[in-house]
């Protein structure tokens, strides 16, 4: 929809009732298409133009594979894509990269800022470099693979899915985690799994300190199967030896939640 025009005190103002800051709704149509694949250069495009072009290709042109060159570390790229597809960002992205996606398999060849993949529902995001804090915040499903290091509070409020970091993780990793899995191959900072409700955190390196109600868990064959499978899928080599951490259930009142509250964590 077009931005709405209003007149106030003799001055005309434009706004978008959906809350969009960037009001230019023109789709740039700059991609080169070839047999179900598309490539475009984002250097001269704005954030909204890049996302509009992505949606045009995936929803209207029946393209299933898109490469975005020169994303320029812009924020909020590749968000809200709700279809099965493959997207490659050749470069780094800013904050809130690939948030709220449901289905895409994304490869980011550079780094990402904070809150990458927040609220992701399904799909795969592989980040070749480092990721900022809050990676996979409120993740609901799918796999997030960070080949570098991740910042603080990775998987805060995580409700499903798997976060894999080959490097170190910052403080409060898995803070208020409710479901899902985290596989950290390096060291982790203080407060690991603080106030964790459910879910599993695997750590191969040193742990500065455990958070409230985060305790070592008993290793099972299912843990070995999960880690071997994920390492094989993403070509991560032989997995190191991990320690497993779960909720100690000292603060646990999950069973007494109201039905509507219980659904929020399912």
């Amino acid at each position, binding site marked *: *929809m077009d931005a*709405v025009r*209003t007149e*106030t*005190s003799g001055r005309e103002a434009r706004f978008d*009732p*959906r809350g969009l800051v960037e009001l230019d709704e023109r789709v740039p149509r700059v991609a080169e298409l070839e047999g179900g694949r598309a490539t475009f250069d984002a250097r001269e495009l704005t954030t909204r133009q890049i996302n509009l072009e992505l*949606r045009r290709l995936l*929803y*209207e042109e*029946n393209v299933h594979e898109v490469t975005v060159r020169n994303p320029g570390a812009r924020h909020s790229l590749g968000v*809200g894509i*709700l*279809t*099965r597809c493959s997207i490659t960002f050749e470069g780094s992205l800013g904050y809130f990269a690939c948030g709220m996606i*449901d*289905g*895409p*398999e994304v490869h980011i060849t550079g780094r990402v800022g904070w809150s990458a993949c927040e609220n992701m*529902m*399904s*799909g*795969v995001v592989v980040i070749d470099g480092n990721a900022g804090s809050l990676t996979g915040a409120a993740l*609901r*499903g*799918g*796999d997030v693979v960070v080949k570098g290091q991740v910042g603080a509070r990775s998987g805060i409020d995580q409700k*499903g*899915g*798997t976060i894999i970091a080959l490097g170190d993780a910052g403080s409060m990793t898995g803070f208020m985690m409710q*479901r*899902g899995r985290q596989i950290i191959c390096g060291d982790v900072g203080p407060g690991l799994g603080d106030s964790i409700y459910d879910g599993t955190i695997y750590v191969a390196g040193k742990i500065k300190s455990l958070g409230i109600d985060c305790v070592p868990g008993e290793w099972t064959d299912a843990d070995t199967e999960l880690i071997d*499978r994920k390492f094989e*899928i993403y070509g991560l080599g032989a997995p190191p030896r991990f320690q497993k951490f779960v909720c100690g259930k000292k603060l646990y009142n999950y069973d007494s939640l109201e*039905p*509507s509250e219980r*659904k929020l964590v*399912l």
Partner: protein
Amino acid sequence: MSDTHHAPAEPQKIISIDAEYLSGHRFPYQEDISLVEDIDLMAATPGPDLNWLEDVQLLEEEGTPAVFDRYSNSFLKIYFPIPEGRENEIARKVLIKHLQAGNSYGIALKERHCKFPQPQLGPWVEDSPTVGTDWKPSVLEGWEPPEH
């Protein structure tokens, strides 16, 4: 004497919303396992494993086996006997059947209310039609924008 005004009735309060309540009827695949046996879970999910379905398990709602549909925040009850050892697999197949058939209440809401273009049926169905291309903000009758 002033006119009599009737207060609007209290909205109905439902504690356990299930898919049948939202849609008004039960679906055949809730009662017949043969209708879900041919669902290919790997094909229905991104990546080379079950991806998001890994977190979907057979649960129970009001004493009946059920799977949770996160797209409508409701439980989908399963009434046929579930073979032992296949609980989670069957739960996932019933859910995917429900989503692919477009019966999830969230999909109906999407068609009516979504503000941005998106596939109507989500990532479980290829070449799904696009909805949300002509969203218009609702207008409250008699409302005028404030002057400042």
